[in-house]
């Protein structure tokens, strides 16, 4: 997994709440292989209509090369589809800042090296305002310091400390789990002995 330490990049304001994972990547694209890249599917139906591009903010030249998104509450709510993170990642997004995130989305994000940075509703509104007015909407997100700097604003963000370490170090859960192989086998043995009913049988 790619490590996340600090990032200075163009940030795009999405002043919307409840951007669910069905919007982030519509279901019809999820049968596609990842190898071809999911970036074109990101927020597809907001960006493209039957007559082509709709002039959605993400596609405006000022935000080309965006790597950070700022949104309103409940970003990534809904379906557990990790493809929502793939779409963000393949588009180039490495950090999403919002007042709250869908529970499964936030977990998926971290597992792919994408930072879900939580701020208050008021701070999100401030960042959205600064970005909308800025001619060159640059932002710095520093995970070591849990800090966002944008224009003359400086804001502390919140992230679960374990997730923070995972992102800083680029850790993969699997390597960690394999170190516990012996205790896993012990547990399995106990479960099979004491809760035989927990193992399915058909007769």
């Amino acid at each position, binding site marked *: 997994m790619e490590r996340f330490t600090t990032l200075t990049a163009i940030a795009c304001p999405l002043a919307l709440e409840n951007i669910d994972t069905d919007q982030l990547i519509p279901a019809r694209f999820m049968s596609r292989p990842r190898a071809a890249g999911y970036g074109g599917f990101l927020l597809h139906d907001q960006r493209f209509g039957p007559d082509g591009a709709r002039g959605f903010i993400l596609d405006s030249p000022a935000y080309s090369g965006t790597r950070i998104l700022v949104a309103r509450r409940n970003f990534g709510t809904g*379906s557990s589809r990790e*493809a929502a993170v793939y779409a963000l990642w393949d588009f180039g997004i490495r950090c999403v800042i919002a007042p709250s995130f869908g529970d499964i989305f936030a977990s*998926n994000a971290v597992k792919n090296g994408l930072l879900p940075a939580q701020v208050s509703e008021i701070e999100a509104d401030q960042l959205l305002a600064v970005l909308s007015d800025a001619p060159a909407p640059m932002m710095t997100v520093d995970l070591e310091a849990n800090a966002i700097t944008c224009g003359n604003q400086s804001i502390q963000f919140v992230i679960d400390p374990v997730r923070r370490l995972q992102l800083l170090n680029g850790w993969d859960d699997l390597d960690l789990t394999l170190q516990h192989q012996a205790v896993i086998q012990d547990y399995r043995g106990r479960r099979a002995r004491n809760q035989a*009913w927990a193992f399915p049988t058909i007769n």
Partner: protein
Amino acid sequence: MKARTLFDKLWDSHVIVTRDDGEALLWVDRHFVHEGSHHAFRKLDEKACDVAEPSLTFGVADHYVPTRGRPVIADPEIAGMVQRLKDNTGKHGIRQFGLDDPAQGIVHVVGPEQGLTLPGLLIVCGDSHTSTHGAFGAFAFGIGASEVAHVLMTQTLWQRKPKRMRIIVDGALGLHISAKDLALHVIATIGTDGARGQALEYAGEAIAALSMEGRLTLCNMSIEAGARCAMVGPDELTFAFVKDKPYAPKDDALAAAIREWQSLETDADAIFDRELRMNAADVAPTVTWGVSPEDALPITALIPSPDWLAPKRGSYVTEALTYMGLQAGVPLTSVAVDRVFIGSCTNARIEDLRAAAAVLKGRKAKVPGLISPGSSTVKRMAEAEGLDRIFTDAGLVFAESGCSMCVGMNGDLVAAGERCASTTNRNFKGRQGVGARTHLMSPAMVAAAAVTGHLTDVRDLPPVRS
């Protein structure tokens, strides 16, 4: 010993090891995979790993399966998805409930039906509505593809213990008012992030009185309130449901299991991080008007107007109403629908089909509609009871089982601009198709909308003259 909640008990019994930082490695008793799990199987292949516990893993073809014309699948991309699940499960020795299996259906309907879902288990699936299985007093939650791959490889998962929340519902639900109405009422009350990341237990008189189907509906919808998982303490009704299910323990093993399951209840003085109390008498038939499940109101209400609201909420409502093609401030019952859908893991169990049939019996639908049973087993039960005839006599299509128009992956789509009264769980923009407009409600309410052609209070339908 310290008093514990039901969730504490479920958690404690699955912890393999807890790290100093609080993350715990949990044992997974059941893992369901579906066509969408292909990303996870690819990760497995990349690492050249085997499935750790194939006999605890079950495949179900549901998201992409056709509801008509089986077994032919015209679209090669969709056919490829169904085939890929068959190949992946076949290769790893996993039991698959595939397209041609008499027990095929939606994963969250098949699990309970097959006795794979039991009290006291930890159940995961790469699908957010896995919370459904908590209705049995199980610890069940949805996971992403990376976690699916991790479970396939290790049969375990790292988790941090969530906070515990309880909603107690006193009193009794009124006539024609179902678990779906209660679920929408809860979500409208606490918001789509109201239970964010929490383990949510339902208790109280109104919950005890719910059927297993009703409890499944309620736990299913809890993900729309942001909950990590939802649960109801198992009782005699739960044990009776499990008995005689194909994969459930039998005879002595069942008796031993039940003895253990009886301890799966929240201790009297256990503490929750948050508790709410509601009264079932306050729940009306409830429908959504907007693009989030929290945008729900009693059917007797008016569509909200941005003018009544603070500016930020007002602009959200304006945008939602524009997408939905609705006028502010008019009665919900004035909204005409173009089609209806009865299906999904939320509301396509036998009790749901019976509730819809009770309304449709002797009546004709004014709009077209599709009914996709929750499983092929439910389909056969409905046919045995003659419900299929009631549906087709009303002019609706009674089809095969799958996720169908809940998500449209199999091609069962609502056309752009069309308005659908639906028993599903998400009214997100584009969920049922690009530009589709979804109103969520109970099966009885969808049936009522079908016969009048507009959103309707099912309690107001005049009796059918025979």
